């Protein structure tokens, strides 16, 4: 991963550690536009076993506090996104008040075409 820039609109206390270059690029775009953002601030529990232990959870990549909106970025091939979509469906069912948007590979390609971004390898 490239070095994390000094973000201006990041609202967290610890420096974000991105999982892939696409997340970093989205963070840079949000930051450039001055949109306050947080990185993975919330983990939503989706399933527990009989003992109450968490067996499935979901941590959306970004949270925009001013918009009260979560963003999940994926640059996986569409065929591999199915699992993530299932999680997203569960989240929407269990947390209907939570606003979340999923960004697919083609969204990133669209941004890449517009902003000259490098696609995650």
């Amino acid at each position, binding site marked *: 991963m490239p070095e994390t820039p000094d973000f201006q609109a990041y609202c967290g206390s610890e420096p974000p550690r991105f999982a892939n270059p696409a997340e970093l690029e989205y963070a840079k775009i949000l930051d450039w*536009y001055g*949109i306050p953002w947080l990185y993975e601030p919330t983990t939503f529990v989706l399933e527990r076993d009989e003992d109450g232990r968490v067996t499935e959870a979901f941590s959306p990549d970004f949270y925009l506090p001013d*918009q009260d*909106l979560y963003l999940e970025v994926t640059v996986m091939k569409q065929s591999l996104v199915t699992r993530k979509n299932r999680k997203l469906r569960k989240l929407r069912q269990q947390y209907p008040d939570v606003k979340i948007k999923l960004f697919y590979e083609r*969204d990133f390609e669209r941004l890449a075409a517009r*902003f*000259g971004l490098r696609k995650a390898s």
Partner: protein
Amino acid sequence: MRELGAELARDYEGREPLLVGSLKACIPFICDLSRAIPMHHNLDFIELSDYGENNDGIRFLKDLNAEIDGRDVVLCDAVIDTGLTMHYLVRSLAIRNPASLHIAALFERPYRRLVDDLPVRYVGFTIPDEFFVGYGFELQERYRNLPDLRLVR
């Protein structure tokens, strides 16, 4: 375009709104819209830096010539997508105390919106998640001059 122009004329009857175009994609739209508004109004333009041009964040490359304190302002753009650019414009112009501030867009993709507190009042069409050129839309600064929209595949 005639419908948008008539709607604007109705809403701003007795006033003289300022149409503000965000360069450059807006040019064909704001020209056609202006011609479709059968009442006095003014035009002005702004231009913002493109992402990646600098590391300091979005900024004005060209500011308004007109003062907008007390004016009715209609921000015009070709398309509202994520809404990030328009969000910046609205924030920047709102602090100059316009009497009103609304948005007119030829196209929008509301399903891609990241900011939902935009004062969008006039929209021509909701368009699919496709990439277009022509009628002001460019690909590497080309094709803006095409008189109609072309789908890029």
